[in-house]
């Protein structure tokens, strides 16, 4: 459920340090339920760790997404605008949210085990 090759935050985001893609975790998408709306940042935006970078909304809930690392947004997944349910269907694949050029913050990310622990505590 929490692939070993990804890094995680306690805000339930995943970061792929190879592709530099970012999304929300399986835990987060299950907690949200059917995702029906996604708001994405603009390409080129500079972000600091913790900045609000977008919103994922399900039928019942609104959830902010925060930058897990610092850097520049180099791409956003525009497919989510018409098909937000990709986040539910393929959260680590077609459900990616944005891609960043990472300048800082990598070392603070959790590995799969560390993230798993956080979930068990919730």
């Amino acid at each position, binding site marked *: 459920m929490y692939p070993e090759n990804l890094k995680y935050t306690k805000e339930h985001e995943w970061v792929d340090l190879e592709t530099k893609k970012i999304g929300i975790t399986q835990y987060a998408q299950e907690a949200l339920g059917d995702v*029906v709306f996604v708001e994405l940042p603009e390409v080129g935006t500079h972000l600091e760790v913790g900045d609000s970078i977008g919103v994922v909304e399900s039928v019942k809930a609104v959830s902010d997404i925060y930058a897990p690392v610092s850097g520049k947004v180099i791409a956003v997944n525009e497919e989510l605008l018409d098909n937000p349910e990709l986040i539910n269907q393929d959260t680590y694949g077609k459900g990616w949210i944005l891609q960043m050029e990472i300048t800082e913050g990598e070392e603070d990310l959790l590995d799969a085990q560390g993230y798993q622990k956080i979930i068990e505590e919730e």
Partner: protein
Amino acid sequence: MTEVKRTPLYEEHVKLGGKIVEFGGFEMPVQYKGIIEEHNTVREQAGLFDVSHMGEFEIKGKDAKKFIQKLITNDVEKIEPGKIIYSPMCYENGGTVDDLLVYCFTWEHFWLVVNASNIEKDWQWVQEQKSDEDVELANISGKTAQLALQGPKAQEILQSLTSIDLGEIKYYRFQEELVAGCQSVVSRTGYTGEDGFEIYLNANEVVFLWKELLTQGQSQGIAPIGLGARDTLRFEAGLPLYGHELGSKITPLEAGLGMFVDLKSDNDFIGKSALLKQKEEGLKRKKIGLEMLERGIPREGYVVYKDEQEIGYVTSGSFCPSLGKNLANALINIAQAQIGNTLAVSIRNRPCQAVIVKTPFYKREV
């Protein structure tokens, strides 16, 4: 706060994978498989809801009808044995205590069916209004369970469990009958915009009937439905929800429920003079339907603007699965309430264009 309650079906909800949340003082399933899938099941096949958290008050006695007329804004003369009416119940100042269904068993025997979150408040209110009327009041909420079977296949499924011809039960009528051997009150009513029934029965038999219905309805595609889809279904169908479109500071006239407020006949009821005055002076605000023109989901509490002037707020808002649109109910200044008017809903501090549209948003094809 009082402790959180559970309906007799709690264990069944958990077994079926229901995600449990607190609603109206009860631990209830918000969804089993997913709100959108459940929503569509009700529109296309049939859905079974545990609504045992709703409250039921029994009113008996010679003056029962007279007493109920004092409580509700609708005209009790519209009712007769076997019939149901919907009505707001108001405070003296016209604000709304609750909205409810009145079931007339005989001229001396009625039920009021009230919202779960209001049971205690309503029960106190109803008792306080009794003066010299010859009536007996009983809060039978705890021993009475309720299931709602809703959707185009509802009748076919329920028919397989009862010998009475359900075709004879018209809209807003009910019969007392055996369903799968359980003594039940069956009404053609609901909160989804679809055809369907609400079934009241003894709380200790509801687990049995719930399982029977799920088994019997399998080939018709029945599924258990949580409160999440119950809300999107009622919202699309234009049905108000207390605490959103109605409240102690919102009158039924403002909520667009004037057809359930009898200001014409000689009937007197609590709140009548306040509501008459509000009507004579003219409403200052009104509930309208909004469709988003820009991307964004309007949510409860979001502020509505016209030309940068704040004119009201969203009472309910959602993505609507059957319509594929983001829609809202809003309570706004009446001067801006005409259909076609373009307004802005503030979503995360950004004004997003929306247009006033006709309600209900969804109407089933008959």
